[in-house]
Structure formats: C-alpha cells, structure tokens
C-alpha cells in the first residue's frame, strides 16, 4: 500500500505531465494495492491507454502468427477422469522441461490412474502425476515412455510479470475443440487487472488463493485450465485457472495464476525435493462429526471421484449386517432414513449423523426395482 501511495503522489505532483517511468512501475505497485480503490481502476485506465504506446502493433499480425506457431508445440491436451455432467474430461497443460514434465491445474481430470497427453502434432503419451501442490492448484505430470525424446518447453524461471494493459494470448484446449491431431485454441486479450483471489468451495471449487492476472478476453472455459497466458510476443506470464463464477452477478472470471508463484514448486516437484506446505485447515476438526461410516454396516461405496458421485455400493463384506439384509454391489442408495441421497458425500454425512440405537433404513435401486432394507445401528466402542 505504501508503494502504491507513493505512485499516486508522484502523479499528483506531475499535474498531468505524467512521467512514463512511474507508470511503468505501476504494475508492481498494483499487486500490493489489491483491487480496492478507485485508484487502481484509474491506473488500469492509464495503462490501457498506454498499452498502445508500450506495445505498438506495427506488423503485428505477422509476429503474432510466428509467436503462436512457436508456442503451440509447448502446450498439450490432457484427457483423464470426468465426462459426467458438467465436468469435462479434458484439460490443458504445458511442458516445463525438455524431458517431458508438464505443469497443469490440479483438478478432477487428474483423478485417474493414468491420464493421456496429446501433443499439438497428435503424438499421444500416457502420463502420471509426479507431484501436486493443491493449495496452488498446481500439478506436475511426467510423460511415460518419452525417454530420449526432447520436447519444446517453457522455462518457469523465465516467467515474467506484466501490468494492466499488457496485450496477452491465452492457449488452451477450451471446449476440447482441438480434439484431433491439431494445436490448441488461441485467444487474445488484455490484462484488465492484477488482483488477489481467495479460495472457495462449492460447485466451482478453487483451492487457489493469491495474486492473479484478470484478462478481458474469454480465456477460462471448460477444459482451458492448465493452459498458458503469455504476452503477445510469447513471454510466459501465467497458468490459466479453473472456471470461476461470481454467484451474485452470475458473471465468469477470466484469470491466470502467475507462473512466478509456481516456478519454485514446479522445480521442486521435478527434482523430487518438494515438500508440501501444510494446509492450515487440514488439522481442524471436522465441523460435522461422523460417528458412523458405511463400513460399520459392512458395505463400501464406489470411489468418490466427482462433485456428486452417485452413491453406488461397490462391495459388501461377507457376514456383515449389509450382507444379512441382502444388499448387493451396484445397488444405488436413494434414501437414508427418508432423506434423499444424491451423492456419496451425502450418504457419508447421513450415516455419520446416526446414533447408537437408531435404525438405518435404506431404499436402494437395483436394476428397475426399489428395495427397502433396515438394520440396527451397532453400538460404537469408545
């Protein structure tokens, strides 16, 4: 804040004759200033006006063509888990080493044993997650069977920062348009603001808290997360984030996480020296105590992979209460004690709330029929 005020003073002193140097420095100032005041908006405007001066677009089309064709081989398409409801099974990533390390967003797409990575020329590889930093929404993958192959890559240590008004390009496999052996989609825009976002939960989870570049173009679409944001002349700026919607205004945010923030964890994961920062919430006791779990009754649910995984029973333990009442694997749990169950998570919560001495009544769907079962809640050993 101190920094920013300083800039403002210099503007005041100049009385309209604004020294360009001050404005050139402003981007670093705006980051600490956060998106709070009129002042920042004004700086945005100033920069917007200035960007034409900073980045004149003489012979621009030609150089943009060249920039894009040079960068596209560094961006890859990732195919993994998903494909249910509005969860896309595709994402984007970018090479961060010539040996085939890929940085991408930490998302449900990676909830698979192996993911498929398709290069801009159609070459296909499988890849595994080498390491992740969920708080930064970062995951690093390593291609399998790519020994001896060299890949074009972005050096995360060379990522730069840029201020409001900077002309940018976004590279991603949004909407999986580039499904074939073709390069990803490219969109253009301008950095509209640099600000800080906070982590959130809900339909559009975003674990990332920290500085972001906000872009005026539509960079963040389904499957775009993990793509790259660069300057028009191809310098690495950020990694495109997950889709974020403002629930109040129903508007969508287009933003990227500065690679500066990610460079050191990326290098640490690659070198195997990565130690995850402790999640401050990790040790907090759960607000809702879960006294019972499905296993207490002798059944297990399918892995909870997506936001609302249907509560299918995966397996039944022999000689358990569940086995005795005739539950079977592939039964879909619809009701727990008359409460509608829409997901594995909801089932865990409902069972967690049971108390010793209750009855557990389940309605399950088996093929085309509904089956009612009932079993006593066992006494819990303290």
């Amino acid at each position, binding site marked *: 804040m101190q920094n920013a005020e300083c800039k403002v003073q210099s503007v005041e002193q100049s009385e309209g004759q604004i020294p360009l140097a001050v404005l050139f420095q402003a981007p670093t100032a705006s980051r600490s200033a956060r998106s709070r005041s009129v002042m920042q908006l004004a700086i945005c405007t100033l920069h917007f*006006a200035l960007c*034409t001066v900073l980045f004149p677009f003489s012979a621009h*089309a030609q150089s943009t063509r060249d920039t894009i064709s040079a960068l596209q081989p560094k961006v890859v398409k990732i195919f993994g888990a998903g494909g249910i*409801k509005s969860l896309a099974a595709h994402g984007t990533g970018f090479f961060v080493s010539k040996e085939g390390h890929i940085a991408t967003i930490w998302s449900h797409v990676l909830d698979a044993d192996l993911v498929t990575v398709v290069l801009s020329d159609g070459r296909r590889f499988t890849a595994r997650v080498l390491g992740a930093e969920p708080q930064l929404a970062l995951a690093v993958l390593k291609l399998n069977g790519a020994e001896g192959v060299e890949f074009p890559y972005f050096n995360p240590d060379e990522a730069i920062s840029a201020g409001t008004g900077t002309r940018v390009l976004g590279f991603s496999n949004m909407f999986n348009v580039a499904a074939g*052996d073709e390069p*990803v989609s490219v969109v253009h825009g301008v950095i509209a603001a640099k600000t800080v976002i906070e982590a959130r939960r809900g339909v559009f989870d975003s674990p990332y808290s920290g500085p972001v570049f906000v872009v005026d173009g539509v960079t963040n679409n389904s499957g775009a997360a993990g793509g790259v944001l660069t300057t028009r002349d191809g310098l690495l700026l950020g990694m495109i984030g997950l889709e974020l919607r403002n629930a109040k205004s129903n508007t969508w945010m287009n933003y990227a996480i500065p690679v500066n923030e990610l460079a050191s964890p990326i290098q640490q994961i690659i070198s195997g020296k990565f130690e995850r920062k402790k999640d401050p919430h990790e040790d907090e006791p759960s607000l809702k105590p879960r006294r019972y779990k499905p296993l207490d009754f002798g059944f297990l649910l399918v892995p909870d992979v997506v936001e609302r995984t249907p509560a299918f029973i995966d397996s039944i333990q022999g000689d358990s209460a569940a086995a005795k009442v005739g539950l079977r694997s592939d039964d879909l749990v619809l009701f727990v004690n008359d409460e509608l169950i829409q997901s594995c998570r909801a089932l865990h919560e409902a069972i967690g709330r049971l108390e010793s001495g209750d009855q557990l009544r389940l309605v399950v769907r088996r093929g085309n029929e509904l089956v009612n079962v009932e079993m006593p809640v066992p006494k819990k050993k303290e």
Partner: protein
Amino acid sequence: MIGQRKVAKGKRGGVLCFGCLCLLATSLTAAEPQVREAELKRVEVIEKVAPTVVAVFAKGGAGGGSGVLISKEGFALTNFHVVTGLGPFMKCGLNDGVLYDAVLVGIDPTGDVALVKLLGRDDFPVATLGDSDKLEIGDWTYVMGNPFLLATDFQPTVTYGIVSGTHRYQPPAGTWLEYTDCIQVDTSINPGNSGGPLFSSAGELVGINGRGSFEKRGRVNSGAGYAISINQIKFFHDQLKAGRVVDHATLGATVTTEADGAVVVNGILETSDVYRRGLRSGDELVSFAGRPVRSVNQFKNILGIYPKDWMLPIVFRHEGERREIHARLRGLHAKTELMPGPRPQPKPRQPMPKKDKDGKPEKTPDLPQAPPSDPHAEAKKTAIPEQWKNWFVAKPGFANYRFNQLEQDRVFVSLKGLGDFASATGSWRLSGQSMAGDKFELTLAAKGVGLEIRDGAFFQQLEDTDPADEPQGTGGFLIAAHQLRLLLQAGAKGFTECHYFGSEPLDGRGELADVIVTTLGAIETRWFFSRASGLLLGLDSRLLEDAEPCQIRFDGWNDFSGRRLPATWRVTSADKEFATLKVEKAEVAGKK
C-alpha cells in the same frame, strides 16, 4: 487507517481522472503513426465491407440473422438455420437503410449454408471472396452482422478478434449441421450473427459465422465461435445458385485408425464407386482430394467440405501397392431426408440438455439461432409479394426451382447454336475411323442404335427392350449415344427429368464444368459443359443406379452440312478405353 484511506481515496480519484484525460490526450499523439495508421486501416476496411452486410429478418421481425452479398445481382450467403422456417420470401436490410425483399435460392442443410437473392436492384455492393485456407492462427478478423438484432437501421455491428484455430471439426449439432474444416475465432459471435460474414484483416470474405461453444455461460460469446470456410462454400456455390437442396459427400466406406496411426478401411459398400475402382477393406488411405490423410477425424474433416456426386482423387495403399483413383462420391443423406416437407425424425446424436438445480438447461444447443426445422414450414402462411411471385417455383427436391430453370436456360443456350436438330427425326449416320485404325459406323435412329466397328456389329433396340450394356463392357455406349441424340433433338424435354446440378471439376482433375443431369427411366446421364465456351465436353451415362457408367469425352465440334456434331469421341468405362472415334462423315436425316 481505514478512515484516512477513505478520505485520501476521494482526492486521488479526482486528480487521477484529470491525469487520465491528459494522458489519453498525450498518448493519442504519442501513439502516432503506427497506431493511428492501423486504426485508419480498420476504419477503411469496415467502411468498404459494411455495405455488403445483410440483416435477415423473419416475417414480423420475430428473430433473424445476418448475411453477406456476393454478387451484384443480389445473391447473398447466410446460414441454413437462419432461413429455416422463413418460407421462400423474407426481408433483408442493408446499411443504406433500405429493407429489401429477398427470395430463398438454395440450401445446404448439412453445411448450414443458404443462398438468398435480394430483389429490386442489379448493382448491389459485393464482398470480395478470399482464400480461407490461407488464414493462420493469430490473424485478425472482423465479424459483422446483426447480433441481438441491435441494428434497427441495419448498420452492422463490428467485432474484432483473432483466428483461434483452423481446419476445426464441430460434430453435428442436434440434427445435420456438421461444421467441417471450419475456422475458429475469438471474435465475438452472438445470437443474430448467424449467417453473417467473417472478414480477413484485408476485408476479404473468408467465412460465414454460424456457431459458438456456449455451454454453461448462456448463449452469448464465450470466446469460441466457428465460421464455415468460404472455400467449402465455393464448392457448393453453383449448386446453391441452382435452387437446389444440396448434400455433402461420403466415401461409401468406413475407416479406422490403426495402432501405427495408419487410416485403414474397415468396411466398404460394394455398390460404391470407390469399391468398383479397387478400394478394399484393409487398404490404407494415403491422401484424399490432394490432402494427406493423417487420422480419422482429419479425414472426416476433409471429406465434409465436398459435395455429393463430385469425383475426387484418392490415393490408397492396397497390399503394399500405391494406387491413385478418381471416384465419384455418394451422398451423406438419403434423398428424402433433405427434402422440404415433413422431416423424418433424425437420430438423436447428442443427449437432450439436462437441467441443473435452478431448472435452467445446463448446456444450451450451440447454435446462435433456432435449431433447424423444415425451411418451408411456414411458407403457406407467408403471402408471396405480388411483384416477386415469378421468383419462386416450388418443386420437390429443390429449395426454389425457379433458379434451376434459369441455370438450365443458361447452359442450354449453347445447344441452340449447334444447328436444327429438332427436325432431324430420321436416322443419323456417323462414320469414320477409330484412333486404332478401325473403320466404324454409328447409326442413331428413333427405334434403335447400331454400331459396326472392327469385325463386330452391335445393336440396341429402343422399344420394348431393356437397355443393355452394349457393346459389352462399355457401360452401354449405344444407350449413351442415344441420350446425346435426345439431348440435341429435344433438350430437357427429351427426358423424364432434367436439372442443372451445379459445377464440378471434370473427371475430378480438370476445369470446373457445368453439369446437367437427365434421367430417362433408370438411365441417368451427367452432361458436362465448358464454362468458358459453353460447349458440351462429354457425358457419363449409366444404365442403373450404382452401375459403371459409359463415359464419353468430346474433342472439337465439326460442321456437317449445317449441323455441328462432336468430332472425336473417346469412349471409356471402368477406366478402360473402348475406342476413340473420329467422325469423318455424318448424315443427319430429317423427317422421312
């Protein structure tokens, strides 16, 4: 601290706004000359092309789209899904502020293209067609049209953005509308932009905007819009201008990608032309229409831009041996499927949009306009403007048969210059030598056709006899020759059905030729006319559907006592030459 900051904020805001204005002023001068130059260039391009942009309106102003003029007679391109349901007549606005009457000309339901004609002028402003294959990712483009139907004075809205992807494939949405080899842009495309032009930075027409990826953001621009490439539309242009309902091509074979990346035929229709030309299951596709085949998707992408019935070069590998063929392609749809009228229920290609918890559809169909239905659905309700009535003729299988009649008239003009054949109802006797040195005599009479060549004599009776492949292996040369007699004698009236098809590259490799298709019973004949001279270049005549045709190509026309006939006839079938006949003498008898 907070209080202080608040006070300071107000002060800063004011000062900065002032500073901001000053800076804007200084930056504008500082920005010269490149910025100013680029801006002026944009203004110039927009001023040049804006008069060609059309606002298409449904009757009563309920909905509409955009279009673009491509000929001074008023032919304009738009989307099929824009004209759907409008009936044969509609209203189109230009930026001169005038609302013109327009008539539907041709439709391409698969490619989502329609051609309309604005009426009342013969000096409409025209957009220059560009070469969409030259577009590269990152190139600047303009989208112009009437998004959200904002322009009540028909001044088009302009948006500016870059090419995000080229040669993209967008699978069928709902029914047929498949976008193959299309252009992806981040230029804003919104509802109402459908059918409007995508211009290159030089102001050349490179595409027709028609789709966007919308998903969960509602039906507004979300950074991915798609335009049908103008190069694809060029292939179909003459067919659309002929008032037809056109169809796209299919190979007649299915392909799959092998583990090594080769694209291999895994199923083939034995009635298809590619099968007759030697393509078999297990063969590897190497190239199609001159473009290398790298994957199944990419092959579908190339195939999708070509019209049904075109002959195209295909290279494949059969048991290790490389072969090049020219094969005629089948249609993607059954004829009745694309006919106006009650539509057969299309197979659901994608699940219905699911509702989210707010009850709103989770995924809206990705067309910036209403989904397609019968283009003539409301035709009956629309009163046809009296003065334009003659611009529309209804006929099954055509969007507007009036335009086919016009094209037939244009092509048949050249036949009139060949002499008076109408009165030549007697026998025609053509004789000479073949290139191989054999003497021949071809006799064309009303009741039969005969040929003597080398030591053989062949005869085809025309009454009470089924047409035969005579001489054997020629695909029915005698019947084909008889078709020529009918055409010269009576033109279109000599056949059960006759229509102008459009243009196609002659034999899949030559110049674009105008094509007339005639049928007589089961016999279908394609007639090829030179677009430069108007002369008949040859014909392909087949006795039955999916039979190997007899192909005759003419070289030169000679005058035989006041009537002109082809001088050299090269007769082939199934890629084998039967003979090349040089006509030295022709006697054409009048009424007996």
